[in-house]
């Protein structure tokens, strides 16, 4: 099946009444959680995972999940611009100039250019996804256990190193995730591991309980500690359609943001946050008026918002073609596919073309829906910010509890989820980034299986990982990454000791 006919078939699936409805539902939920600070797309998809059990077809479930993910990127800009508070992590840099624009009475223009930039970038990235994904999936058909082991370990390492936090903490969380994935029956030898006599643990931890606990309830518990109150900018939104001058100022920022976002999104661990930061840095560096950045430059909104949308679409490429989720939200979509009995990876396009093309086509439709939802309805989204957290929090708890109970109809899962909630809360208290945890958990079985199969294949010779061309190249990148990070860390330490007294609060451990 060629790309064009595949896409046409995809549109035939995406444009059915049910799929359009779930695409719209995903876009609305995504925008809503993007608007609400303190609940990210990963947490929301985690909260909605049990619903995928009751949604009839896999393609419908994934269309809704995808809608939530890229919808959150659109919604995140609203709180950044109006409250100076990012609705989700990828909109952090939008606060800088977006809020300044709002204070100058140009909130409408900022929200408008964010929505239009998001639409253009999101659509361009889906075109890229349409073109790149099928050939990459075909290439990945040649992958054996050594290639998969090299790819998954490199992906996990990249997810830690690119997350921007402490690398040691990231690696600890990664290993914790791998160990959690090993709880229960060993798939090769049949031995029971880490269950301590509990029958409930013999089947291993369920991804839904882990995701809901760490990302859903963990976040709620942490937010409950906060005493911070925020004020919405009270100035009128004004016209949300940018003027010709705004468009002229931001069109190249949108184009650059789209390209940066697309390529950063493909890299595991890259994702929406890094792409928006990179886009902002590039816009400021190459601007003719860099002094305007931080004072309400429209390019400072257009670039990052375009980049984070492009990245959210392109991060589907490693998932759909290699079966490797690059970030926490995509790991939730990976789990949703597994719940539906579909293994993401190179065989997806051949075995489930309806899912592959249906989801891609729905992204074109979803981006149009989001543009329509975001421009005229921005005032409505702002009203949503007035829902008190005191009502929202217990409703989310009720939702997660019945949701996790419904997966297997046993209270044990609720206790498991509460254990993960406590873990997620402590992780935030100790400044651990929880993103590598679901990635390691979903990739853990693949890492272990491919490692042990590779060693069995080679008769115990570890050289198998470097003697085959693809795994060899991936392993070289893996080693270079570790060496590079170590050198970077040591050089920074050495410079600090010898030369400049850097302000202590900016210092970050390895």
């Amino acid at each position, binding site marked *: 099946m060629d790309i064009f006919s595949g896409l046409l078939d995809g549109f035939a699936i995406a444009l059915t009444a049910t799929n359009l409805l779930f695409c719209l539902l995903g876009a609305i939920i995504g925008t809503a959680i993007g608007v609400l600070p303190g609940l990210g797309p990963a947490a929301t998809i985690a909260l909605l995972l049990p619903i995928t059990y009751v949604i009839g077809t896999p393609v419908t479930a994934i269309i809704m999940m995808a809608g939530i993910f890229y919808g959150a990127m659109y919604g995140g800009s609203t709180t950044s611009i109006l409250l100076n508070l990012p609705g989700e992590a990828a909109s952090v840099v939008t606060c800088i100039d977006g809020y300044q624009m709002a204070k100058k009475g140009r909130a409408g223009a900022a929200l408008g250019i964010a929505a239009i930039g998001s639409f253009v970038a999101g659509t361009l990235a889906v075109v890229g996804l349409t073109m790149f994904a099928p050939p990459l999936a075909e290439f990945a058909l040649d992958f054996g256990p050594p290639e998969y082991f090299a790819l998954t370990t490199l992906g996990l390492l990249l997810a830690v190193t690119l997350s921007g936090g402490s690398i040691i903490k990231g690696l600890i969380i990664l290993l914790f995730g791998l160990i959690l994935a090993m709880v229960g029956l060993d798939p090769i030898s049949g031995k029971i591991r880490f269950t301590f006599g509990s029958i409930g643990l013999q089947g291993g931890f369920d991804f839904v309980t882990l995701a809901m606990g760490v990302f859903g309830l963990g976040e709620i518990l942490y937010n409950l500690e906060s005493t911070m109150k925020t004020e919405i900018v009270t100035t009128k939104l004004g016209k949300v359609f940018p003027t010709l001058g705004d468009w002229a100022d931001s069109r190249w920022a949108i184009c650059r943001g789209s390209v940066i976002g697309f390529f950063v999104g493909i890299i595991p661990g890259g994702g929406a946050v890094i792409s928006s930061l990179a886009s902002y840095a590039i816009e400021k560096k190459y601007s003719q008026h860099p002094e305007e950045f931080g004072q309400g430059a429209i390019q400072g909104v257009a670039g990052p918002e375009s980049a984070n949308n492009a990245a959210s679409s392109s991060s589907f490429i490693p998932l759909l073609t290699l079966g490797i989720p690059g970030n926490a939200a995509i790991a939730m979509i990976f789990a949703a596919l597994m719940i539906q009995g579909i293994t993401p990876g190179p065989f997806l396009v051949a075995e489930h073309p309806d899912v592959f093309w249906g989801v891609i086509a729905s992204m074109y439709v979803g981006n149009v829906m989001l543009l329509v939802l975001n421009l005229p309805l921005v005032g409505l989204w702002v009203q949503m910010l007035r829902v008190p957290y005191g009502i929202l929090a217990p*409703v989310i708890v009720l939702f997660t509890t019945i949701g996790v109970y419904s997966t297997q109809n046993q209270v044990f899962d609720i206790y498991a989820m509460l254990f993960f909630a406590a873990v997620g809360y402590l992780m935030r208290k100790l400044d651990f980034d929880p993103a590598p945890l679901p990635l390691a958990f979903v990739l853990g079985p693949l890492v272990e299986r491919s490692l042990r199969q590779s060693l069995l294949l080679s008769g115990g010779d570890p050289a198998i990982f470097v003697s085959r061309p693809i795994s060899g190249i991936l392993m070289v990148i893996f080693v270079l990454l570790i060496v590079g990070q170590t050198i970077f860390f040591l050089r920074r330490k050495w410079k600090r000791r010898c030369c400049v007294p850097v302000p202590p609060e900016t210092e970050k451990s390895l």
Partner: protein
Amino acid sequence: MKLREQLTALLTSLAGVWIMSYAWIVLKLGSIHVPDAGFLPFLCGAALAVLGVAWLLALHWTKRKEAPAEKRLWHRPLSSLLLMIAYGWAMETLGYISSTLVFVIAWQQIVEKEKWAKTLSIAVLSTLAMYALFVHLLKVPIPSEFFLR
């Protein structure tokens, strides 16, 4: 924060050592030709032990001045977690509807310190909404009511 981090680093190392010994003694490592169930857990345990020590050393070398922290209310997450545990237990014992109603009332009174009128309206509305969504719309089987058994 630093003391808390030092303790966590130490616990990480100890957990790593424990995982290594569990993998070696209970699960068995096998050989490099035929790795057994303890092979990867052993490697992960070893890596955790090393990372814990590396973290301790990094903390020792890093001089950090703590930024002034925002005032945080630790008792709210603790009380809400305890409420959630009680809710899990009550769901099976009392049934879904009664436990949900009691849970929301307790949450609004203990965690949010709301007035009774608001508490009761939130509790009734949220319980009805959950019941309508999950039981009627999504057909999720729920634990039956104690008084109706």
